[in-house]
């Protein structure tokens, strides 16, 4: 099925003045479309965690968001260092965030598990040296 419309966003590396803007924009659109508030919140949280990971760990990247009648699909991709051990990265508490990032409040090692908890579907693809792709699907109905 074709999407009703799509949005693309650039996610600049290490620029916290705009980090989260893609998620914020999608949240606004979903609210305008009249999507159920709890679904908007889960979508925003899942997308924000993936977006901020691209900012912090992935040297920045891109977001592609496709809106369908019954669902939204979100792809956050980067060409950063990738993830060596996905299972380990998924564990709550595991984080490689450096001190300057932790000082801002990131680095609890909970972002990926937040995505898993909030997304209806979540696929994490990553290859060391190539980059990371986070696929999130949210059902709207």
């Amino acid at each position: 099925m074709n999407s009703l419309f799509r949005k693309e966003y650039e996610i600049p590396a290490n620029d916290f003045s705009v980090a989260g803007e893609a998620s914020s924009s999608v949240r606004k659109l979903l609210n305008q479309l009249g999507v159920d508030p709890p679904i908007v919140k889960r979508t925003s949280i899942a997308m924000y965690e993936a977006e901020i990971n691209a900012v912090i760990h992935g040297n920045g990247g891109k977001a592609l968001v496709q809106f369908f009648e019954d669902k939204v699909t979100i792809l956050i991709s980067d060409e950063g260092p990738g993830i060596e051990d996905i299972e380990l990265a998924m564990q709550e508490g595991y984080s490689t965030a450096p001190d300057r990032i932790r000082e801002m409040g990131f680095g609890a090692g909970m972002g990926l598990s937040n995505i898993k908890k909030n997304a209806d579907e979540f696929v994490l693809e990553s290859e060391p040296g190539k980059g990371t792709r986070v696929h999130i699907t949210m059902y709207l109905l």
Partner: protein
Amino acid sequence: MTVLEFSQQNGYTIISCAETAVDREISGVYICDLLSMAMVGVKDGNLWITVHTNINIIAVASLTNASCIVIPEDIPVESQTVKKAEEKGIILVQSPHTSYEISVRYYVQSGGDPS
């Protein structure tokens, strides 16, 4: 209780979006300085207390539908954070009190509803 009532009763300073505080209802308190934990823990309408004053707290408060952010112990707030808060409609409140004292005051003044 609204953000305005709570701030006025306790002499706290509202440093962004003050004009919206009059009808922003507070429902409960959440205290946490780990942002991705706050992402889970801040429920709609919560007053969120954090010692962080960097720009990222605005996205967290916005995406979680917090009623406001309260910065304890008179920690100065970066000007770019205040600017972002204005942009996103987030109310920032500065308090001289500790996180503990702020939440106890809310508990007592809101009639002891621990939710």
